[in-house]
């Protein structure tokens, strides 16, 4: 998951889910059993305990989840645009909808309310009760738009705290300590417990807490409610903190079952304490209140983390439909209340069961709201305001490969953009560290040779790029998307080190079958021709030699005409002719613009083919650069000559690193070749066949990996 230029599809989906859940919540409100007439615009004549439980559960987490995502995106925005850019953006996206929207939405809500109350009370509006409580200080009817006001208040608080924090923490140690603590907390799986505590305390100490409705809805005053401020402030601040280490979302993606279990258990406890039907009176102070506050707060965060984990796990890829819904959800939430309540009022007295009326309200209201978004908002200045862009009337269906966002400008040219990246990737197998914080990228049109001793992590890196392994930590991107995205993998060819193919099939059948998975494959004849596997075409795979099987695996890797090809030790077991054929095919593919990642133990292979070399050892990237750059890491040279001097004599000279002799010829590895040459010529007048050359990739590799060890 990236936080820089890429759209965060999972969090977009979560934000949309939280907002649309709000629509469901309000749509079901008139069906809550025991609803006091007059408390809501309509009290339906077919109440439902099922809806009561559904709304109770949804209301536990929906706003906290929303504020968490808001905090996450707020920090992203702040770091992209700075303080000024942040406030300009928030003014347009939050303040303006509040200021411009409230004067329209409030009268609409009020009108529907009057209509509903009139119907509820038999045609006349009820008089205000004589003992009605006095309006709170700073009373203001925000309606459901209170969340916009709270966002602005919380942004102000968070940025003020941040400024103070930076003033105190000039060396950054406090931030590092905080990050480390958050990381530790997330990895322990106890995040929900710890983060729930401030909310639980705020709720417990609130006087006159109507517990069934959880965190009080602060929709009636400009003076913030303390419990709401703590509840939603915790969520927004935590979202802000998590953005500092966005890869932690991947940890929650692995913990979602744990959090879901906690959420279900916590919700069950709350319902057992508070009852399925809502209670509209404050809960008495005591043990039950404390237990409810703790269980409720824990449920808030268990639900939120479970949903964040699920979304990270399953919705991190670009999806046009989810994207559309995510864009529409903000508009829908802003204007849904009068529409939903009007429908409640319209059907509230009909002699129909709630199983008909509730879905009817939802379907009709969402149809109206989505249609209004499609035709009135998406392509207009309001869409520009709410979504940050104005979509053209017809949007291309196919998302580009890049960041999945057809309207976000690409900041780099295709040549500069990496095709595949590993960023801060860690991977362990039990106690064995396979990769320890690798950063590696494959650029367009290059052959990247990945070298390293056995167990260095080369095959693990390839498996991560192919989605066959999941990183314990860090980010993996393949062709602008996730390695799990099948669409990305349609442009990738793979030759793994150890794989099996269906032995009962013939080579031609295997190529036909494999090519059929790709959008624009080579023909079978072309594949056989390029890879020199023509003579094997009609033979059963099971009957081939080990080298022939490698040739066939290479044919399968290239038959899909890949943009990116992974070759994991491809020439092991090949004879010289087959290896030459494979090298020729590889060079042809690079010439046609294909990028290749090659792992090999044959350094001459890397030297002959690679544009860039990455050396891994012990799970770390210890050197990366062009072949010349890697060679230059080793400043040594080799002198070869025929001499009467003995190895022992030469070995004692300064600047000589090693000497190897064979039949009167010696190979001397030196640090300073000029001095050694002068001495050689002075010591042996009969010296012959003198040759000086720079150290090769092999020497460099040995030196680099030895130093790393």
């Amino acid at each position, binding site marked *: 998951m990236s936080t820089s230029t890429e759209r965060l599809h999972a969090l977009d989906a979560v934000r949309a889910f939280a907002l649309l859940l709000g629509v469901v919540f309000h749509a079901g409100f008139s069906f809550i059993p025991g609803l006091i007439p007059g408390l809501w615009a309509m009290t339906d004549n077919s109440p439902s305990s099922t809806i009561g439980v559904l709304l109770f559960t949804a209301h536990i987490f929906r706003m906290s989840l929303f504020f968490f995502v808001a905090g996450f995106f707020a920090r992203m925005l702040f770091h992209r645009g700075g303080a000024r850019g942040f406030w300009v953006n928030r003014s347009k996206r939050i303040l303006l909808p509040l200021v411009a929207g409230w004067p329209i939405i409030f009268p609409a809500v009020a009108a529907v309310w009057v209509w509903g109350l009139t119907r509820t009370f038999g045609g006349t509006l009820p008089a205000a009760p004589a003992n009605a409580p006095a309006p709170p200080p700073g009373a203001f009817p925000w309606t459901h738009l209170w969340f916009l006001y709270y966002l602005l208040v919380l942004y102000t608080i968070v940025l003020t705290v941040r400024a103070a924090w930076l003033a105190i923490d000039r060396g950054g140690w406090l931030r590092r300590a905080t990050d480390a603590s958050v990381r530790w907390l997330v990895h322990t799986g106890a995040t929900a417990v710890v983060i729930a505590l401030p909310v639980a305390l705020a709720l417990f100490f609130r006087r006159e807490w109507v517990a069934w409705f959880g965190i009080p809805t602060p929709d009636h005053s400009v003076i913030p409610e303390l419990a709401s401020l703590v509840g939603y402030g915790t969520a927004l601040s935590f979202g802000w903190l998590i953005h500092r280490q966005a890869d932690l979302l991947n940890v929650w993606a692995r913990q979602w079952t744990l959090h879901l279990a906690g959420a279900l258990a916590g919700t069950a406890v709350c319902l057992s304490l508070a009852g399925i039907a809502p209670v509209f009176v404050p809960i008495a102070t005591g043990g039950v209140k404390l237990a409810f506050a703790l269980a409720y707060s824990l449920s808030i965060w268990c639900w939120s983390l479970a949903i964040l984990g699920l979304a990270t796990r399953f919705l991190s890829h670009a999806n046009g439909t989810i994207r559309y819904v995510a864009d529409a959800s903000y508009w829908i939430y802003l204007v849904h209340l009068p529409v939903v309540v009007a429908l409640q009022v319209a059907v509230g007295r009909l002699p129909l069961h709630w199983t008909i009326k509730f879905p009817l309200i939802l379907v009709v209201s969402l149809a109206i709201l989505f249609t209004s978004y499609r035709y009135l908002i998406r392509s207009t200045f309001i869409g520009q305001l709410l979504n940050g862009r104005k979509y053209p009337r017809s949007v291309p269906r196919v998302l580009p490969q890049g960041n999945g966002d057809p309207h976000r400008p690409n900041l780099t040219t295709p040549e500069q953009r990496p095709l595949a990246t590993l960023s801060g990737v860690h991977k362990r197998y039990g106690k064995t560290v396979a990769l320890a914080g690798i950063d590696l990228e494959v650029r367009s049109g290059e052959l990247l040779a990945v070298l390293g001793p056995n167990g260095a992590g080369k095959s693990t890196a390839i498996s991560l790029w192919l989605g066959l*392994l999941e990183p314990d930590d860090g980010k993996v991107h393949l062709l602008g998307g996730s390695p799990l995205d099948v669409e990305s993998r349609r442009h990738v060819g793979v030759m*793994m080190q150890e794989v099996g193919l269906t032995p009962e099939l013939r080579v031609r059948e295997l190529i036909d079958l494999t090519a059929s*998975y790709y959008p624009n494959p080579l023909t079978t004849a072309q594949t056989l021709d390029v890879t020199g596997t023509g003579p094997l075409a009609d033979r059963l795979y099971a009957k081939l030699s080990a080298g022939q099987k490698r040739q066939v695996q290479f044919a399968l890797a290239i038959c899909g005409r890949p943009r990116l090809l992974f070759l994991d030790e491809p020439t092991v077991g090949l004879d010289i002719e087959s290896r030459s054929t494979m090298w020729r095919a590889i060079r042809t593919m690079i010439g046609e613009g294909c990028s290749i990642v090659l792992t090999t133990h044959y350094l001459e292979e890397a030297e002959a083919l690679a544009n860039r070399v990455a050396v891994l050892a012990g799970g770390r990237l210890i050197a990366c650069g062009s072949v010349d750059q890697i060679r230059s890491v080793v400043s040594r040279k080799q002198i070869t000559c025929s001499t009467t001097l003995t190895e022992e004599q030469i070995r004692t000279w300064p600047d000589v690193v090693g000497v190897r002799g064979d039949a009167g010829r010696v190979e001397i590895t030196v640090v300073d070749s000029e001095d050694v040459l002068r001495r050689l010529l002075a010591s042996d007048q009969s010296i012959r066949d003198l040759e000086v050359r720079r150290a090769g990739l092999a020497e460099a590799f040995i030196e680099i990996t030895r130093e790393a060890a």
Partner: protein
Amino acid sequence: MNATLVRRLILMDLYLMRWPVAGSLLAGSVAIAMMPLGAVSSYVGSVCLICVLVILNIVLVMTFIVQEKKDKVQIFMLSLPVSTTQYTAAKLLANATAFAGCWVALTIAVVAVIDASALPNGTLPFLLAVLAYLLMYYCVLLAVGLASDSAGWHATVITIGNVSVNFLIPWLWSRPSIYQNRNSPFAVWSGDIVAVLAIEIAVAMAALGLALYVRSCRTDFV
């Protein structure tokens, strides 16, 4: 999910499974043909039919799921543009289609032979309960094959599955509703037979559902 891709994977597997399936259909047909020939041949035919289905079960799961994982064919398939969900769905559907196709054909043949021959129809509920047990056994083994790489688990399920048939048959036969109606010209579907059938189907479905869930949670395939 890309239906074309899944269909292609299924067809490939069905192609590879054609000989075991054809062999089982042939052997099963011979076993069923023996049933109306007399008391001994009826017993021998029934035992042979059970053996055929058990062997087909083990061959399909162990060869086309477990062995493929061991031979790393699965890694090759997952390195292609195929998602784990597509691959799992294809493996499950192909394998289940092969076995269920065979099972349905042989079960219909059993019903037809009993109905058309002098064999009493009263034995039909008993035979169907045994056959449904074999279907359940297959589903459990398929589920374990899909969800687990452990040879120990596979061996355990096969052992329990094979041994338990020997306990199931006498237990079912001793049910009063079956024993008392064994020579009846009509099949009597008593409450306990219906319950046995329902449990067998429920266990089969639960095993497959659990396997899909476990499989969907898995993130490392190397």
